[in-house]
């Protein structure tokens, strides 16, 4: 087997050195009743070619985003990733290294994590960011738990504009520890509705901008209302590129930002791996979940970086830790930070404007279709339309014509009574021809 270097002679010599007669001698502690002779019922060893054929056949059955007119968003976005990114993340020293617990021989990882933290802090407009969480939805769940620790209150008020899967992932975890959630009804312009629900028991208010319907909202007044009641404001962002055009959560008074970073540097990957961005106010840092990289010096006084504040973490604090999180999204943070270094502020702002431009053009094309109503008043690169038919049916019909028209809202929240709502996203990847194809096909289906 090509991944196994030991030869039969090696094995014999090693068994002799150990003083064992056979390999079975090394498994003597396995109870007889659980011992199995022979191989489990699965195929045997396969060469590269066979594996490539088998997996290639599965891959060929999928319609990839790049091969069709493509308008899906709702928390995952197709952006162009420069070739440099994928090359660098496959370097052995990044790909095949572990968590940087030995800082003297892991400065490569530690420095890029420090740079990543700074980029995320600046992008979100927040003082500090951690070295990433699993994805945006788990970041939101951790944000709610952190807010309950900080405020010693037990209730989260969640806007009806937050991605329903994020809400579900959060509720699943926080309900287990007895945190109460109040989720407001879904509405295109839902964010401001949370203000009326803030009470003395509110630990945090969770809003999303742009929200799941694409609506961009200035949440400054929500922050003021939350703070006046002693609650924290958590801002969720599912499209990181939007922060290159829209006011940052930090500018608008967020206390915690939980965002999905997939848009920068990372492929769609059918939903993962992605990279959760997590940032907060400075005074909250000791309640933060996840890994943090900090600056220090070595014995020669030379600047270097280490994982720090680990007394918050499970491997030190065990059942008193701020979270059970161990792994972060290392290689996805690397992809993010390389792409962001290439873009710089100039590139990011331009990319964001291109996204907005393509979305406006798509909006205009769809708005012209009789029976199609654009619902989202102001947006970055995604908006909702009302169709004359159930959106899921329309999407399926267009998929038969090799057009991926967007995400039916009913797929995210079937009980919301919004079966006719379609979420449509455009990015810098969207071509004018794609918009035309979508508009004409949609016009036919809706006629």
């Amino acid at each position, binding site marked *: 087997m090509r991944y196994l270097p030991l030869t039969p002679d090696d094995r014999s010599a090693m068994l002799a050195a150990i003083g064992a007669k056979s390999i079975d001698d090394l498994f003597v502690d396995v109870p007889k009743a659980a011992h199995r002779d022979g191989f489990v019922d699965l195929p045997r060893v396969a060469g590269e070619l066979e594996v490539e054929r088998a997996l290639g056949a599965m891959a060929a059955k999928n319609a990839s985003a790049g091969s069709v007119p493509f308008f899906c968003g709702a928390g995952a976005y197709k952006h162009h990733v420069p070739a440099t990114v994928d090359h660098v993340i496959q370097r052995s020293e990044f790909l095949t290294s572990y968590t940087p617990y030995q800082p003297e021989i892991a400065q490569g990882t530690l420095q890029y994590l420090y740079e990543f933290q700074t980029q995320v802090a600046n992008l979100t407009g927040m003082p500090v960011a951690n070295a990433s969480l699993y994805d945006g939805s788990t970041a939101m769940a951790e944000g709610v738990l952190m807010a309950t620790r900080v405020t010693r209150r037990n209730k989260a008020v969640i806007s009806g504009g937050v991605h329903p899967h994020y809400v579900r992932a959060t509720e699943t975890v926080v309900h287990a520890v007895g945190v109460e959630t109040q989720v407001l009804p879904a509405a295109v312009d839902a964010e401001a509705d949370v203000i009326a629900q803030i009470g003395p028991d509110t630990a945090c208010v969770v809003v999303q901008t742009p929200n799941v319907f694409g609506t961009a909202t200035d949440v400054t007044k929500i922050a003021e209302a939350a703070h006046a009641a002693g609650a924290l404001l958590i801002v969720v962002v599912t499209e990181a590129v939007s922060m290159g055009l829209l006011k940052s959560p930090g500018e608008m008074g967020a206390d915690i930002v939980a965002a999905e970073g997939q848009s920068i540097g990372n492929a769609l990957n059918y939903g993962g*791996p992605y990279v959760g961005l997590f940032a907060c106010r400075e005074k909250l840092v000791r309640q933060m979940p996840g890994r943090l990289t900090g600056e220090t010096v070595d014995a020669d006084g030379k600047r270097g970086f280490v994982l720090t504040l680990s007394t918050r973490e499970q491997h030190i604090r065990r059942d008193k830790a701020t979270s059970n999180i161990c792994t972060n999204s290392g290689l996805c943070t690397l992809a993010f930070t390389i792409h962001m270094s290439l873009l710089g502020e100039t590139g990011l702002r331009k990319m964001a404007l291109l996204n907005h431009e393509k979305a406006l053009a798509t909006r205009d094309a769809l708005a012209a279709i009789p029976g199609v109503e654009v619902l989202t008043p102001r947006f970055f690169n995604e908006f909702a339309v009302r169709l004359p038919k159930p959106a899921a049916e329309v999407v399926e019909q267009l998929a038969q014509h090799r057009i991926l028209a967007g995400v039916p809202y009913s797929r995210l929240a079937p009980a919301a009574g919004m079966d006719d709502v379609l979420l449509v996203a455009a990015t810098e990847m969207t071509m004018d021809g794609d918009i035309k194809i979508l508009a004409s096909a949609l016009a036919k289906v809706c006629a």
Partner: protein
Amino acid sequence: MSTMNTVGRPTTPNRVESKPATLTGGRGLLQDEHLIFESDGWGKTGVDLPEPKTDGSDLGDLVRRDPIGLPGLSEPETMRHYVRLSQKNHAIDLAIYPLGSCTMKHNPRLNEKMARLPGFADIHPLQPTSTVQGALELMDTLAHWLKTLTGMPAVALSPKAGAHGELCGLMAIRAAHEASGQHERRRKVLVPTSAHGTNPATAAFVGYTVVEVAQTGDGRVDVADLAAKLGDDVAAIMVTNPNTCGLFERDILEISRLTHEAGAYFYCDGANFNAIVGRVRPGDLGVDAMHINLHKTFSTPHGGGGPGAGPVVLSEALAPFAPAPWVVHDADGYRLIEREEDEAAQAFGRLCAFQGQMGMYTRALSYMMSHGSDGLRQVAEDAVLNANYIKARLSDLMSPAFPEGPCMHEALFDDEWLKGTEVTTLDFAKAMIDEGFHPMTMYFPLVVHGAMLIEPTETESKQELDRFIHAMRALAEAAKAGDVDRFKGAPFHAPMKRLDETRAARSPVLRWTAPEGSNIAAE
């Protein structure tokens, strides 16, 4: 005197005794590298984009006006920055990476190639399922392999890491107790003292009280103590098997019998599955739930600390409570069940926005299919053989924590043998760095003083093991011979000297900020 060729170029090196420091701080191939924020890249970009036709003015006051604080680099500068950084990292591809409990094995590049096929990498999580039948087939196939290898009837794929898998397993257990009306009573989770920190952290995270179970002198769960603590107030036990001392729990069948008799569930931490894959099925041991770190046993890369993946196999009793989403296969092909209320299931909820770590599923399946059932059994056997070989070859100089009997995939030593040398486990580890090796796991498990946990994995050749053993023996002899300076200041030859972690924690500097008086307008 050096010899010269006909144009006066020296062809043999001069011998120089002294070693002058360099003038710039550079050291041969090792480059000092500044932060991207210290480059002159403010305003630059390494991406050529067309001019946008909008300025965003339709968004009025929502537009971000202040500087963001993101430097840009041209492509060559970017490449150099990250290549320079990369050269300061140890990696599996460079040398053995013997971190116990971490399973740092070779990462086949075929897996990377497969994960990047556009049919897997370039598909959206919310595309109509009719357009991603191959992706669902892959998930279903992976599930089949995992279920067959573990002898378990069900698997929840979506957990994004080992700790996330623990969360999944405990939530399924909790949901099962809720369904049978026992949750209010069963509020304790029993965890052996040798457990990974994530075990008690997860139990607490889910709202349980953690009760520690003692360990016997031979490094196993104290069954008498476990039996005494089991009762109708216990929801589950969390046991790692093989355990974190690198030993198989001999009494595992008794442990699961007692647990079930008490009405509790058996959660197995599967971090060490590599030692038994293809040889022992956790389902035959009475396990109710076990996460599988795809980034350990199934070789998806660790990537400097993630992304991982932690699918959880579940027993018949827990299967109904698995979180959404999951894949079903029927006459119409593959379907994705995304909501827990669908199919009248009792799912406990959802753990993340989408389907989990598809990119890791592809890599893991590529790895499994490459090995096959025969290769995977050989994986376990070679992993155990390599660890026992290291243990055998070092036991005369170092003190194995549990000398009796074989270990499994990792060899555990304590610091008894360092007594009187002034050298600590940490010093020894740092001296290993100077010899070109990544240290083993230190000070874990907590039950062994000054622990050194060595896991070579099956992908080390005998030659590399001998090289490692030679270095370990040389260092051990140096420590015993009183060569203390070699250890106390180590590492001397790494890119950095020992770093001041206390300082980093006392006054945390967690981001770069523009120096006072600079005109860089970062936040």
